[in-house]
């Protein structure tokens, strides 16, 4: 939250000192723990920046549908922790699902996720993508802030990437668009299908049906 000029006039000198002191302390703690298990926020930021560039480069190739889908598949696998996202989206029903159901579900989720975002990403028309900062969530996870800058008059879209580091490997486990969490939205959507009487098999049917009808548009 940025502050209006009027308020900061009086508060600025002391607050400046406090912020500097806090900053130094934080830097000290980070440098002391950097060598240990702590996932560095900067690594997460770089990861998101790098993957963002790769994605834009893929799009710029203007590949035919089949090639684009193949590249997007590979991109998703090296960028997102799809099984973790699938498990989260199943919500409380993960306790009810059999192993066979879980296995089938994870595969269907993957296709559903890839289809949806392959389509949405194709509509991205080269607006500027900037990584603006990050904050740690816990010792192995960081939330990387970014925004898509749009033409004059339209506010930039704020996207946050929830990045987890596991065995030295970064993977995105969730994203928030203007505070709306993809994982929560999918969990509630899937829960709606399950609750309406279809049960977990109903969800599997709905996913299968959706995947079968998918066709990449322009």
């Amino acid at each position, binding site marked *: 939250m940025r502050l*209006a000029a009027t308020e900061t006039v009086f508060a600025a000198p002391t607050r400046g000192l406090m912020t500097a002191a806090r900053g130094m302390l934080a830097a000290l703690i980070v440098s002391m723990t950097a060598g240990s298990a702590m996932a560095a926020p900067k690594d997460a930021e770089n990861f998101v920046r790098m993957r963002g560039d790769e994605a834009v480069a893929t799009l710029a190739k203007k590949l035919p549908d089949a090639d684009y889908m193949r590249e997007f598949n590979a991109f998703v696998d090296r960028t997102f922790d799809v099984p973790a996202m699938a498990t989260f989206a199943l919500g409380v029903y993960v306790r009810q699902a059999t192993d066979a159901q879980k296995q089938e579900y994870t595969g269907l989720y993957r296709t559903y996720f890839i289809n*949806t975002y392959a389509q949405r990403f194709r*509509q991205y028309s080269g607006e500027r993508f900037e990584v603006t900062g990050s904050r740690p969530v816990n010792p192995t996870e960081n939330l990387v802030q970014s925004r898509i800058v749009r033409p004059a008059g339209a506010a930039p879209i704020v996207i946050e990437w929830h990045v987890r580091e596991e065995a030295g490997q970064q993977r995105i486990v969730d994203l928030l668009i203007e*505070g709306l969490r993809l994982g929560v939205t999918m969990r*509630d*959507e899937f829960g*709606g299908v399950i609750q309406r009487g279809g049960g977990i098999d109903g969800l599997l049917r709905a996913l299968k049906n959706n995947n079968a009808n998918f066709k990449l548009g322009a």
Partner: protein
Amino acid sequence: MMYKLTLLAAALALAACATVPSDPVARAAYDQANDPLEPFNRTMFAFNMEVDRIVLEPAARGYRATVPAGGRRAVTNFLRNLKSPVTLVNDLLQGNVHRAAQTSWDFVMNSTVGILGLFDLTDDTDWENHEEDLGQTLAVWGVGAGPYLVLPFFGPSNVRDTAGLFGDRTLDAFEYVIEPPDDTRFFTGRTVAGAVESRERTLEEFNDLRRTSLDFYATARSLYRQSRSHQIRNGAPSGV
């Protein structure tokens, strides 16, 4: 008349109550959804989707086809500026003097130099535009959301935000400067124009979401809850 309609709606809503599941997993999901009136809400939602299909989406497409981008931006600015007085009152009710000052500055500048708000001159201030309403204020005061509610025409809401919707009119300066019956015309016009304006602005996103969702009702319910919580926190992180 209004009274009878309200009673009728309440009776319908009660009759349409969902049965509480006994299975613990289903019960947890039921509680999470916070939607005991789901059957009634789904009916309202289907009604609103029809209104969208027949009226709102065509209106949004017509608006896009006839008004060029620059003109649409002026409309967006104008409508946002008309919301500033009620935002200001709610900023103050939330004890947010800071944002109240920003709202006042935007309103004064845009209404005068910006010619009734058609131009947003305060784009380059170091704050972003925001909107506040009584539902958000009540939340800041600690009032819980209450069950989810889909209102005809207005769409997703909850008990608290519905109360806020009615209460906001008594907080809106326009209620006191515009004489009846013109005040009702003004509020209706602002609401309808706002609906068309925002439907046009999110035309692709909305339609894409509707097309890809496995259960659009549940998706809309989830997004409403999340976006309200984001607005109540004024965009501050929720502590993942």
